């Protein structure tokens, strides 16, 4: 039976936080991947960038993003891709929300990634970001790892990986 939109894996960060959250052995029989994320940084502050790497490879990533900071909106480029999570100095027990879309993840061409995310804070400061990213590597994506720019991902953060299949 074909599954058009199916959960493939789920990860909830346990006590003490985690340096990495990884989905391994991703099935290659879907068209696209979606990851829904509710996360917070254990020690990083403010915007708390969460980087995403594929297949354990840390090179070949680029992105353009629109970032709202509470003090203005900027357009930026960077040599990474990912989302924002809630910084540890923001309101306690409050987690950022984000969604990542990875098209044609099993193809032998460069990968296209888009995401939107926001980290909440019961104050004026709060970040919202839209990302259009690329990974120039042509290998099929078999694993995805999330890491905080600084420190661990906080306990109770959740990452759910879904597969989307196109009817051809």
């Amino acid at each position: 039976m074909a599954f058009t939109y199916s959960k493939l894996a789920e990860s909830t960060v346990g006590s003490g936080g985690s340096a990495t959250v990884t989905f391994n052995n991703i099935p290659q029989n879907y068209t696209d991947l979606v990851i829904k994320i509710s996360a917070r940084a254990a020690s990083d502050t403010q915007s708390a960038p969460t980087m995403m790497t594929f297949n354990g490879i840390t090179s070949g990533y680029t992105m353009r993003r629109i970032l709202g900071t509470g003090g203005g909106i900027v357009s930026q480029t960077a040599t990474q891709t990912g989302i924002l999570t809630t910084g540890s100095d923001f309101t306690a027990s409050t987690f950022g929300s984000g969604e990542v879309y990875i098209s044609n993840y099993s193809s032998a061409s460069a990968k296209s990634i888009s995401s939107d995310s926001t980290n909440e804070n019961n104050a004026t400061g709060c970040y919202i970001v839209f990302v259009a990213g690329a990974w120039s590597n042509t290998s099929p994506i078999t694993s995805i790892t999330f890491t905080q720019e600084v420190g661990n991902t906080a306990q109770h953060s959740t990452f759910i990986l879904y597969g989307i299949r196109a009817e051809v």
Partner: protein
Amino acid sequence: MSISKLTTNGVNGSKYNTVSADNYYMEPIATTLLTSTTGTITFSNIPQTYKHLQLRVFAQTNYSVGSDFLYFNINNDSATTYRHHQMFSNGSGITHSTATDTAGFYINRFGNTSTGYWGNCVVDIFDYTNANKTKTVRSFGGVDWNGSVEGAIYYMSGLYPQTSPITTIKISSDSSRVLSINSRFSLYGLKG
């Protein structure tokens, strides 16, 4: 229960084609389609068995001045101060701002009866049963207004700074306004 699979008899008679209706991800919980105007719609006794919720809104109010926000209230709590942050553009710039209110946080802008415009948005509510997290939502949508700055596109983040599981969601217009007939609110559960 959602449809899990559909098959149709193929045009050649002997072949059964699978239709893309397989869905082991998202199930409809409830829909309210207004047949009369009202100031508030409520989803109560929300099942606690899903990982995330998603609310899809197509709405309009009778606000005579222009496009209109709706309030998103959780668990009938009007004592807590809610907060939202928003990034929006009305065609003449883009802004990031925040506000607080005890009635709930805002979700997007919607149309009004005098112009006939409607607004829509999709609201994601992650980990709505998790007692270790305050409740946050993100919403994307807006309304076009045929060139007027009343039209706007919104990406909003809402905070209900309480950790209690969400059992009730109430959507309401400002106190002096009502939602139009044919406004639709559909709540879905996303499996974890």
